[in-house]
């Protein structure tokens, strides 16, 4: 899963650039006010230059270089997020959003996990660590979005359309997931958990879960 890694790098880079620009503008304003104060004390008039062509051109050029740099950074990050050759997924999970909860169907296994998202009944998306998993994301009613803040990634779930992406989760853990598209009354409760477990444990979980598949789901 490259998203988290790519994001943290680019977010830091862009935050630093933004911070420097912001600091420079603040410093420029402070300097301007100081100069103006001294000017007034000396009784000097305001400057009259309306243009400094060379400076204007240089500034425009600097902006263009900056923009070009940011475009290259953005393109390369997007390229890393969506590599031309995705790793071949070893399993698929159909993630279906509905008003107002989630359904996770493990393709090829008699296992479906769901819940009501009310009163703490949040479904858990269990995935194995270290294996590329394809998520097939769709919705049965309105537009929702699948968001795991820990992964720094979200994707809309449209009715009548399947968005596919591949995640490889490097380590075990349990994180909250949320709906990130206004979907109506209980949007704010439409949470789930992403739980990543070692591969062997995942196999045992899948097996145990298959026995109860008939009663799970709605």
């Amino acid at each position: 899963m490259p998203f988290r890694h790519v994001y943290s790098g680019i977010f830091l880079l862009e935050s630093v650039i933004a911070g420097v620009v912001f600091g420079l503008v603040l410093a420029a304003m402070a300097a301007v006010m100081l100069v103006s104060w001294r000017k007034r004390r000396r009784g000097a008039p305001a400057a009259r230059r309306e243009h400094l062509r060379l400076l204007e051109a240089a500034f425009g050029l600097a902006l263009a270089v900056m923009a070009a740099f940011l475009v290259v950074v953005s393109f390369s990050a997007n390229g890393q997020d969506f590599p031309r050759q995705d790793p071949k997924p070893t399993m698929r999970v159909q993630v279906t959003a509905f008003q107002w909860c989630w359904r996770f169907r493990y393709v090829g296994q008699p296992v479906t996990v769901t819940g009501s998202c009310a009163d703490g009944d949040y479904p858990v998306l269990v995935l194995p660590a270290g294996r590329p998993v394809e998520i097939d994301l769709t919705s049965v009613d309105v537009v929702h979005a699948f968001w795991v803040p820990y992964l720094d990634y979200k994707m809309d779930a449209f009715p009548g359309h399947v968005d596919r992406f591949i995640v490889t989760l490097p380590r075990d853990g349990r994180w909250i997931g949320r709906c990130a598209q206004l979907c109506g009354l209980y949007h704010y409760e439409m949470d789930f958990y992403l739980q990543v477990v070692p591969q062997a444990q995942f196999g045992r979980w899948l097996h145990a879960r298959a026995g109860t598949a008939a009663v799970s789901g709605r």
Partner: protein
Amino acid sequence: MTAEPVVTAAPGQEETDGLVVWLQTTDHKRIGILTLGAAFVLFLFDGMLGLTMRAQLARPGQHILSAQQYNQVFTIHGTGMIGLAITPFALGLGVYLIPLQVGAPRIAAPRVTLLGYWCYVLGAVTLVWAFLTPGGAAAGWWGYTPLSSSIYSPGPGMSLWVAGVFLAASGMILQGATVLWTILRMRAPGVTMLRIPVFAWTMVVTCLMTLASFPSLLTAMGVITAARIDPGLLASNAWNLAYENLFWFYGHPVVYVMFFPFVGCVAEVLAVFSGRRFFNYTGTAFSLLAFAALSMAVWGHHLFISGQQVNDYFSLTSILLTIPAGMEYFGLLGTIAGGRLRYPTAMLFALAFIPQFLIGGLTGIMLGTPSVDYAVNNSYFVVAHFHYTLFAGSVFGFFAGVYFWWPKATGFLLDERAGRLHFVLMVIGANVTYLPMFGLGIKGMPRWVVTYPAGAGFSALSLISSIGAGVIGLAMMAFLYNIYISARQKKPATADPWGGHSLEWLTSSPPPRFNYDAQFPIPRIRSFTPALDLRERQRERQRVTPSQRAGRPVTDTVTTDTRAYRDEG
């Protein structure tokens, strides 16, 4: 001398006062004041809805409003602020100021402008009506399908919302069209396109974007209408995707419609109170045009997370906006650099605009990068970003304009002490409210949540943000108090209380019915700062031949009138 205080309206206006007369006026100044006044009332209403939301979110797990009510409140807050408050502020300022600034006796097609006002007011009434129906409209200001269809949003509220948005947007199209027409075709002799004030240039691009993008919103409302008649349409992904694209084809340019006129206000205020002409005028004018053109090609960055958009193209166009935006900042900073700054309230708002909008602008560039957008889109990071642009930016620019042009429109000055209080509360309120939201977004707090559990880690920052919102409420009260005491004091304004640069400062305050007359004629126009040119010529004449001081009497308003409000420089 003609620059004596002119408190009463010009002859011929007093006897025609009265609500009915106002509501059928063809005077662009009155239509402008009506538009701005209605927008300000709705601004306060939508602001109170915002405060209600902040009250709910101040502590975890609160249910002051039910989930349905909360969704209605943010839907009307967003739709109202954008469609009924800030956009009409933008175009209303244009309706009032543009004929004055280009030396026209009236606005082009005044009845169309008035019709635009009426469509807007009807739209506003319809939207408030939608809010008051049981169930209301609760699909957010985007009104995404299929949520807004009759299956998922049954009842009249959503239908009224569609009608209200349609009407208000139609009204803005009409006003934008007549303002643009006035600038392009009704300029006084000598006022070439490169001699209109910077504010007028910002209105040119604002109207161009309005005309180019608002029809797309009307079409989008057509899609919802069709979907409310036949919800089966939306089973096809194409319709939902079409709606999102149509909506954002309006929804992004409208962001700049709600931005540029206020940049124009800031530019005028900075130049006047720096005592020098706006710096890099031509560069700014062309960068505005470039910005407007590019703004039509960036809407797709709202759809990065749809998974059905061309990421690289829209990232490219969005990031390229930094070039014209940077050039505009260059003009603003270049204007104050080397100036002799004075600090009346208008100037304070204009100066605060520069760094505060910058926060919104810089985070906007970050959101133009898909890899960042995937992480923080639809979180409070975005809420912080656009409130920095719209509130800490545009609304500050708007108040700079209000304090600046209020004496022109009313004939009396706003109180400076109350103005300062208003300003300080605004700065504190805006930053305390919106800065914590960046943190909430990074921590993973989604938009549109009715409440959040105590253990989610959002409690402290949310509380700080809510306290800030309360301070914004106090700031608005300070402004209302200012209007109240200023109207009681009626400290008369001269024709030019600030030492203005553009044409409108050469006519009376308030201006006569047809803006310029025998008593207040339009001088020969040689640049985009005719009022300043005139003062400088006068000074020159006085210096060269003091005995020949005859001719048109113009005082050096910089030295005489600054006494009126206390110059701190």
